[in-house]
């Protein structure tokens, strides 16, 4: 062999080695997950645990070797509950950060602002917000993990019917979630033989609801009261409720399924019922419950790391991340169309929100068993079967 032959062989070898390393380098491309969350602002109690959950589990997954040999890269933006900011950040995630999948949208408002962008750019998007309008009608690229407000109404009315009550008074706030849930409850009430006999509202920053509740108390046939709202309004409604001595059962929405609501309402919350995810009662779930393992694990991991009570909203973010990661695994890569198809084919995924079975028409995948009916007794939750 001459010098030139050896040189040619070396060059060819180097070229092959380079090609292999380039392929290997390409396989090391991280799976980019984008998120826009309401970490500050009026919906901070949603976005803050969501961000903490995403960061914690991306770190854990990467420490365990990533997904299909690739690391996860998380980009989080804070929209402070502002739909316009959410739109801007979604654009940035799609165009600049070139994410493979988006998990975010803490509120219905911020989610709906992002929907047209993800549909146009064809990026799979898993929303963490509540209203039913997000998945109905089903949009090709939009999925969601939290239970809808319609499901909450149905769970509550099922309980109302079980107690043989028919006449329900509504009191709700004027925020997006409140209005949406109130509308859904009015729509589904006839299905459960429920008649809405009163319909009062209050402003989001109102400090006294005794006038509205006095009117409800004065309506002679009221048998139960449903407060569709979130934030501090329901706590004030609960206190005013007991102050006025109203004895009819009071139902709240899953929007206040948190210890904070119980703390603010104090003794007035005794006997209040609301639908909530199994996560809130992880400790008292029976061992046979399919969700027990997942919720107990998430609860202990979150509470150990962040030293604060776990919240269902963080649980929705956990489910969103895990669904996305599972879909990437099953799709064998981050091809957006394949990931989308894999998401839609999710069957039997057990999460903190419930057991998920998605279809082409159902991009949420939960049914009524995903909700537990809880009652507040002595400052703690009790499961009503």
């Amino acid at each position: 062999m001459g010098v030139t032959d050896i040189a040619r062989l070396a060059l060819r070898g180097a070229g092959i080695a380079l090609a292999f390393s380039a392929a290997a380098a390409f396989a090391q491309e991280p799976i980019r997950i984008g998120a826009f969350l309401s970490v500050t602002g009026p919906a901070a109690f949603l976005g803050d645990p969501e961000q903490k959950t995403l960061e914690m589990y991306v770190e854990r997954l990467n420490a365990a070797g990533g997904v299909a040999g690739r690391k996860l890269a998380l980009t989080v933006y804070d929209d402070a509950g502002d739909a316009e900011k959410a739109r801007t950040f979604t654009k940035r995630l799609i165009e600049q950060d070139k994410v493979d999948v988006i998990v975010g949208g803490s509120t219905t408002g911020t989610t709906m602002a992002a929907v047209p962008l993800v549909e146009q750019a064809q990026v799979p998007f898993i929303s963490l917000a509540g209203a039913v309008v997000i998945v109905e009608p089903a949009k090709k690229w939009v999925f969601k993990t939290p239970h809808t407000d319609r499901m909450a109404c149905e769970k509550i009315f099922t309980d109302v019917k079980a107690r043989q009550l028919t006449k329900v008074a509504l009191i709700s706030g004027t925020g997006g979630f409140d209005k949406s849930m109130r509308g859904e409850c009015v729509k589904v009430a006839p299905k459960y033989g429920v008649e809405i006999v009163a319909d009062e509202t209050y402003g989001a920053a109102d400090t006294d609801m005794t006038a509205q509740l006095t009117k409800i108390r004065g309506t002679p046939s009221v048998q139960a009261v449903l407060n569709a709202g979130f934030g501090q309004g329901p706590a004030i409604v609960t206190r005013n409720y007991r102050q006025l001595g109203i004895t009819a059962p009071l139902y709240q929405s899953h929007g206040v399924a948190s210890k904070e609501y119980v703390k603010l309402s104090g003794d007035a919350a005794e006997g209040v019922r609301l639908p909530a995810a199994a996560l809130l009662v992880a400790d008292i779930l029976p061992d046979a419950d399919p969700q027990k393992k997942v919720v107990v694990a998430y609860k202990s991991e979150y509470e150990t790391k962040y030293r604060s009570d776990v919240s269902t909203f963080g649980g929705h973010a956990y489910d969103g991340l895990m669904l996305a990661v599972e879909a990437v695994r099953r799709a064998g890569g981050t091809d957006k169309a394949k990931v989308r198809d894999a998401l839609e084919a999710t069957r039997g995924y057990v999460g903190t929100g419930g057991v998920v079975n998605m279809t082409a028409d159902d991009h949420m995948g939960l049914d009524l068993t995903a909700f537990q009916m809880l009652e507040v007794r002595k400052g703690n939750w009790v499961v009503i079967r």
Partner: protein
Amino acid sequence: MDAQWVQFVAGGLTVGSIYALVGLGFSIVFNASRVINFAQGEFVMIGGMSAVSLLIAGWPMPLAIGGAIVVATIVGLLLAKVAIERARRADVVTLIIITIGASILLRGVAQLVWDKSVHRLPPLSGDAPLQLFGATIVPQSLWVLGATVAIVAALTWFFRRTRLGKAMLATSHNKLAAELVGIDVKRVLLASFGLAAALGAVAGVLIAPIAFTSYDTGIMLGLKGFAAAILGGLGSFPGAIAGGLALGLLEGAGAGYVSSAYKDVIAFVVILAVLFLRPDGLFGALRGERV
């Protein structure tokens, strides 16, 4: 049905007293400097949140309340010294914008110092509702009403009988003349902000057991207190009280008799109507100009 109006009045008076206290703060500062201090709502928030922090730190309730009022007063004095006094040669509109900036700053700092959650103070004498004339009210409502009456009496004495109070009144009538007779107008400005801040803090501490407190409670309360002060006549103390109570009653009656969805609309439409007929407010003295 008859007892209903008593309930509406009870709720309206409670929340109206808070608007009255906040409105008083607006009027006091306006009198001393012609400035509308849009950070007034933030003083209410600082009072409530400070009391929550001190309570969590282990201070007994009376000291926590006192401490909260001191903290808010210091913030008020700082605002006057650092921002308003420095810019006193500026246009009144500029000073008003400075107070808007201050309110945004205070809200942002509150999020860092405290958190974004909603907090509650324990009530001064329990939660057990009382039955009065067919309406149920919580004892804290009586505290709010009683404290407002006591504060109005104390302020009347302060403005009529003490030198500083009389100096503040004199400055509000004619700033130049007050300066000429030797009143230190700078001191009056500082005292006005401090007093307004203290009043705001008292309102915040009183209402926190009923309406809770968080970093952004100042926005709505400040706006309604301002509306109350305008309704009663900006600069008039009895006007601020009357305006506050009237606004509270309008909201309660509007929610009770007309529509709970439109109660804020009703209240503000009435305020606009009053101002169309009497632009200086209910108690505003028609000011004459000396040529």
